[in-house]
């Protein structure tokens, strides 16, 4: 069995901080875990911190896009934070648009953005 990426609950937010080079199985497990935790906790927001990720390839990119779509259907907004500049440049050249994925520069701005979104909804 492969390791799993921890999903932390902080108030109404789920926080995922990816700290290791991800195997594909871990990527798929994370997608499952996140949807399950959103339903189980009724979380309104998800933050995925990828500042430690040295690359985002098509597999991880697809997970980020799929997760954004699934969480939205489940009533939670996902913000991806901390993408490295080199990763962003590579993603564009790879041809990945990350459609529907909201991003913020860092964790702090991501939290602010989530607060603004939920205030707008209320």
């Amino acid at each position, binding site marked *: 069995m*492969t390791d799993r990426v921890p999903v932390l609950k902080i108030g109404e937010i789920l926080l995922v901080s990816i700290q290791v*080079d*991800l*195997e*594909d*199985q871990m990527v798929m497990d994370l997608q499952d875990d996140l949807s399950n935790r959103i339903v189980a906790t009724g979380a309104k927001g998800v933050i995925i911190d990828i500042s430690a990720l*040295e*690359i*985002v*390839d*098509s*597999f991880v*990119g*697809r997970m980020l896009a799929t997760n954004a779509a699934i969480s939205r259907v489940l009533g939670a907004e996902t913000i991806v934070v901390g993408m*490295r*500049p*080199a*990763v962003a*440049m*590579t993603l564009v*050249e*790879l*041809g*990945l648009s990350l459609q529907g994925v909201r991003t913020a520069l860092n964790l702090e701005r991501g939290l602010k953005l989530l607060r603004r979104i939920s205030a707008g909804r209320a």
Partner: protein
Amino acid sequence: MRDYGAALASADTVSVADSSDVVSARQMVRTLAQRSGMSLVHQTKLVTAASELGRNMLVYGGGGVVRAATITEAERCGVYVEFEDRGPGIADIELALTDGWTSGSGMGLGLSGAKRLVDEFDISSGPDGTTVRILKWGR
């Protein structure tokens, strides 16, 4: 693409049989890229390309071998990587290199994207397998 096969005399090698091996293969490529003094952006592009090609080799080729070596020329330094599998091959390479074309459930970006991310790209494929060769120069 020129023949860089001679550089592989001193190559690093990773056998790819499961998805943890894909992680090892991209770590090997990253180490060589760092050693060759490649800029961070170039490293990131090369390692991302290696990740795509390593995954393809596992998913479609049933696994294989990744070999990598640094290349030094008078004015420049780079990293050469070869991905060789003994899978069923790619029937229509041109089609496979089209953005968005996938025979499975992927996004069809791996092959075409990897080609864009490196400086030299070569693919040969037949019923006995597929070999993809890439090279990225340091800057």
